[in-house]
């Protein structure tokens, strides 16, 4: 009788090492152990090293007096201020240059981006030259160029470049008129707030009317008239309680007005020019992404060119533009740290630079600095994501 092969009713149990879930588990445990070991090793070495070099740990240094002066501070600061205050001064300076950069870069970037799409050959080529030139040159090089080669070589105060006797540019910085608020100016402020509330109500009313009756209303012009007109009326009714402190040449330098130090001037200029080149490309791709059919459909409906742009093209382009624009804002904020190269007192220069050199507390200071930039990035991301969600396509 032939042997009958024995067939087990159970399929052969696969080897444990072939089970993907088991392998994933093993792999993750290994990864975790490796990372933990790495950090334990580093922390161990660091503690040992710091002990040997006599570096104290902890954040007590933030309360000690700093003993150095800072070129520009938005809050009162002196040499007897603490390192904690140094940190705040640096942070505020970083935020100042970032906000200025973001505003100017957005303006220039949108302008150049639209120019790039102009049907005028010359304008379009000029925009192209701008974009290709500035985005292919390192930002640091541009910063030191504007600072050492341009701002330094500007004429002395007596031979300042003057723009309409209001703005003066010389090798000590840029001098612009400063607003001086007089008595009763608060009423203009109140009028502005009232005007804004009125506009919000007007827009709501106009939208409701449009949705129920289909009649449009010139919201933009009306809103502009209210926002500009009402405060202006109050302003003059209260006797124009605001004058401009115009800088004037006295002795060897300008007195009065607001002074923009050359460092801030050069840094803002470089950040603006560099980032605007990238924003311009973003804007161009955004506008080009709106299919031509949309424009044709709009004109078929009888919309004017301006309304086509405002109601059809721009809202759709913005959806494509906002995410990369957010990255550009993040980049600009991070790039403002290059201030250290020309001595503009931003967070990196005064805190991760001078303070670190004086206290030697590298771990704490670098950790704080990185945490600040992470927080700033997160804040910008959240803000822009909220805006993006508002503008996003709402499918019904």
């Amino acid at each position, binding site marked *: 009788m032939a042997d009958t092969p024995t067939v087990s009713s159970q399929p052969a149990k696969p080897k444990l090492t072939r089970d*993907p*879930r088991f392998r*994933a588990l093993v*792999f*993750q445990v290994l*990864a*975790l152990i490796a*990372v933990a070991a790495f950090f334990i090793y*580093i922390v161990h*070495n*660091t503690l*040992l*090293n*710091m002990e*040997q070099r006599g570096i104290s740990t902890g954040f007590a240094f933030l309360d000690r007096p700093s003993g150095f002066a800072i070129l520009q501070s938005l809050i009162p600061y002196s040499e007897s201020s603490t390192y904690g205050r140094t940190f705040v001064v640096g942070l505020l300076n970083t935020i100042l240059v970032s906000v200025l950069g973001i505003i100017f870069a957005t303006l220039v970037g949108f302008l150049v981006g639209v120019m790039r799409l*102009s*049907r*005028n*050959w*010359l*304008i379009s080529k*000029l925009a192209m030259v701008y974009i*290709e*030139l500035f985005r*292919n*040159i*390192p*930002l*640091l*090089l*541009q910063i*030191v*160029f504007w600072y*050492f*080669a341009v701002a*330094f*070589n500007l004429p002395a105060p007596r031979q300042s470049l003057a723009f309409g006797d209001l703005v003066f540019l010389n090798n000590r910085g840029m001098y612009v008129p400063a607003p001086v608020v007089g008595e009763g100016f608060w009423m203009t402020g109140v009028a502005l707030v009232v005007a804004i509330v009125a506009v919000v109500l007007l827009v709501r009313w106009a939208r409701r009317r449009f949705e129920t009756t289909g009649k449009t209303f010139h919201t933009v012009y009306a809103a502009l008239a209210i926002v500009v007109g009402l405060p202006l009326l109050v302003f003059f009714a209260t006797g124009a309680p605001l004058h401009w402190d115009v800088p004037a040449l006295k002795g060897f330098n300008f007195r009065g007005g607001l002074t923009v130090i050359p460092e801030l001037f050069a840094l803002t200029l470089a950040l603006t020019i560099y980032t605007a080149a990238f924003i311009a490309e973003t804007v161009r791709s955004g506008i080009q992404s709106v299919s031509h059919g949309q424009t044709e459909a709009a004109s078929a409906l009888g919309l004017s060119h301006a309304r086509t742009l405002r109601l059809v093209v721009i809202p759709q382009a913005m959806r494509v533009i906002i995410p990369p624009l957010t990255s550009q804002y993040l980049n600009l904020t*991070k*790039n403002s*740290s*290059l201030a*250290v*190269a020309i001595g503009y007192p931003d967070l*990196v220069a005064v805190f*991760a630079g001078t303070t*670190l050199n004086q206290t030697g507390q*590298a*771990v704490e200071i*670098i950790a704080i*600095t*990185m945490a600040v*930039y*992470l927080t700033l*990035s*997160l804040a910008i991301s959240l803000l822009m994501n909220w805006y993006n969600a508002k503008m996003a396509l709402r499918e019904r």
Partner: protein
Amino acid sequence: MANTFTPLPDQPPPPSSVGAIAWMRAHLFSSWVNSALTVLALYFLAATLPGLIDWLFISANWVGDNKDACVSGGACWAFVAKRFEIFIYGFYPLDQVWRINLIFVGLLVLTAPLFLKSFAYKLYLAGFILFVFPVIAFFLMSGGVFGLVHVETAKWGGFTLTLLLAAVGCVGALPLGILLALGRRATGMPVVKSLCVMFIELWRGVPLITVLFMSSVMLPLFLPEGVSFDKLLRALIGITLFQSAYMAEVVRGGLQAIPKGQYEAADALGLGYWRKYGLIILPQALKIVIPGIVNTFIELFKDTTLVTIVGLLELLGMVKSALGDPAWPDVSKEGYVFAAFMFWIFCFGMSRYSLWLERRLHTGHKR
């Protein structure tokens, strides 16, 4: 008699629709707004261009030993000419410069076949250039073997250092970025995934300058006593880790764009994880994101300038330090313009190359 249709000869187009005049009418003066813009642009060009060209070329000085040679009011290129070797090679001993030149020439000779369509061993050659050539180049630069004089890294500088930082950054960041991107997409491995996400987001959220500061002041603290890294190596580690986070996001974009069917097909063929990604997914994903990868390389190339801040003299640093020479006062514009020109040529070249590559590798997924 049959009527045969004989068309009349074509009329020439109306003179207003051909030639320079028509082109100008269509592209420069199509409406009064456009005409005004054209005039404005022409005025701008007329105001800036002649002066610029005059300064750059016509009244520029090309030869001379010090600032006294530059009297004509134009750019003082004599300064750049005099310092050219130092700008390119840094403080590398001049009698050893042939080693750097050999690397440059070797790289050119090796890369040239990659542009040929008929060359069959591109993959092997690319692998050689990426992974073997750097080792040879390192020993050639550093010396100390085969009877070559040892040149310490502190003497490496100028444009050589710029290229070195960029090349090592690229070669290191690409594989690391791919691994991070794969880790970020590893489903079923939450620990690996979150480690990768943390790594990527942390590096992307901070400025490179703080990373360089960290590598210069904190890395020595991390290491056991007595072990110290070369300054250049520390900067290289910082740059590579930083760029790998950006690279990871670029690659992730490519991985996301591959249709699910490709993954399923690979699974159906019974391919394992590495073969699935190495043979099917990654080649397609990387091809899609070539523009992104080249963009990251361009960013990296520009970011190499930042190492001046931690005291390594690459091209910009070399130019900056040469500006302090009392024999050459007031030549900062010339120095920076020269550095800008060098960077611009390379970055612009890379972006054009990426466009070309994109078109070349477009293997017909267009419908």
